[in-house]
């Protein structure tokens, strides 16, 4: 049996390696299961993977689940400012009743999770450091994710929406003065060449994005028992690797920026609380209003220690 896996990253990216581990392990198990990886958005565009996945036209994908927030608004909780504090907290969230509730939503779309995983991100400023809400006031800012846009707008930033590939030029020419996205995107788009300050994810971080390896549920159920077992065992291995590597990414990105001569700033615990208070009034509030069982889901997430 051949399964097709699509993702948007280069073959050096941690998320490709996660997929590759699953593919290699399954192949080694010798259960007549072959995973063909289509990386670097060679098959589908990043935001257009969830629809074919849910309709069974694609078997597997690794993607930020919030990309599908338009199909299942509940997924917006997987990119919510301040909801996740650090990588260990993220791992606990992945094995909580909150995640079970989300997986129930995925099941509605015939989708299931094979590998859980969160990646963190930070802020860059063209002229100054961004650590607390006051810092973004009046700045043209590009945020990654709807909830971040709402929170930053609440902090008085002006939101400019554009593709992450445009960030470099926009900062260079001054169209943008601040941006927020994942550690790996900051590095791969070489943003360190154009900014003066970087606030990476550290002991606390605001920006965590859930980026699981998903599979079409019917496709999984169509496999025989040996294949299913092999797939689940491979996924468990990949998940352990994912968590370890995710922690290393933030430090690695900070190192790249520091080497490029960019100032590094740190978000203090008070800063984090200030952002979180702001997020409660803006993005959390908007989420609860928009999603029918939003409050319950949010409570489930907040209940995770």
């Amino acid at each position, binding site marked *: 049996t051949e399964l097709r896996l699509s993702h948007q990253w280069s073959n050096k990216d941690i998320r490709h390696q996660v997929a590759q581990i699953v593919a290699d392990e399954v192949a080694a198990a010798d259960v007549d299961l072959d995973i063909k990886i289509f990386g670097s958005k060679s098959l589908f565009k990043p*935001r257009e993977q969830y629809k074919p996945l849910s*309709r069974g036209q694609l078997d597997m994908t690794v993607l930020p689940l*919030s*990309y*599908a*927030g*338009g*199909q299942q*608004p509940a997924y*917006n909780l997987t990119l919510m400012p301040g909801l996740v504090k650090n990588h260990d907290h993220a791992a606990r969230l992945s094995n909580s009743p909150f995640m079970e509730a989300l997986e129930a939503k995925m099941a509605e779309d015939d989708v299931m999770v094979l590998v859980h995983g969160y990646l963190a991100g930070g802020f860059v400023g063209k002229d100054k450091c961004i650590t607390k809400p006051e810092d973004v006031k*009046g700045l*043209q800012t590009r945020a990654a994710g*709807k909830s971040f*846009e*709402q929170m930053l*707008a609440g902090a008085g*930033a*002006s*939101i*400019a*929406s*554009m593709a992450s590939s445009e960030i470099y030029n926009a900062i260079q020419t001054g*169209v943008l003065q601040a941006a927020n996205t994942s550690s790996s995107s900051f590095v791969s788009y070489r943003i360190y060449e154009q900014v003066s300050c970087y606030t990476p994810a550290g002991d606390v971080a605001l920006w965590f994005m859930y980026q699981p390896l998903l599979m079409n549920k019917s496709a999984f159920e169509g496999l025989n028992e040996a294949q299913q077992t092999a797939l689940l065992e491979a996924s468990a291995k990949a998940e352990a690797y994912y968590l370890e590597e995710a922690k290393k990414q933030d430090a690695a990105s900070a190192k790249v920026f520091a080497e490029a001569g960019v100032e590094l700033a740190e978000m203090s615990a008070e800063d984090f609380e200030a952002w979180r208070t702001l997020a409660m009034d803006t993005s959390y509030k908007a989420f609860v209003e928009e999603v029918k069982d939003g409050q319950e889901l949010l409570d489930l997430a907040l209940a995770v220690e």
Partner: protein
Amino acid sequence: MAGHSSAVASHTGNNPFLRAVAAISTLAGWCSAGMIVAAVAITCQMIVVRFVLNGSTVWQTEAVIYLVIAATLVGLPYVQRLRGHVNVDLIPLSLPAKPRFFMAILTSVLSIAIVAVMLFYGYEYWHFAWDRGWRSDTVWGVRLWIPYLALPIGFGLLLLQLIADLVAVLIGVDKPFGLE
């Protein structure tokens, strides 16, 4: 052919069906041009809001993208009517009248078939988005069936114009491939 200012429309003769389809396609062309103009206006508005007023621009990028997509799809029948879709007519040109006629019928039928497929699955995709209540994953959160509507409309009207073009060749109102 994709000449610049020479808009050589396909012939309709006095055939009411052909004229009706031509009128619909022209109307679609106006809508398409209108959407392009709207995209210009919105982009300029966005630049003013951002650069002059230093305000947030949340919906403009998305609106412009959908307008350009809709302009493209809805514009298809009109451009077909103006024979604006480029083709390679090397072989048809070198053929004598009879084979050229059959070649024209064959390419027409193939075109009609593929556009019908696009119409069918385009409609299905639109309906799926409507049924599931899909929205875009932005603050603006557009209901996706609205932009997706351009798929069935655009391909539906293109199908109509292609059928009209085939009919025109069959009843002799127009020459195969528009070649004299």
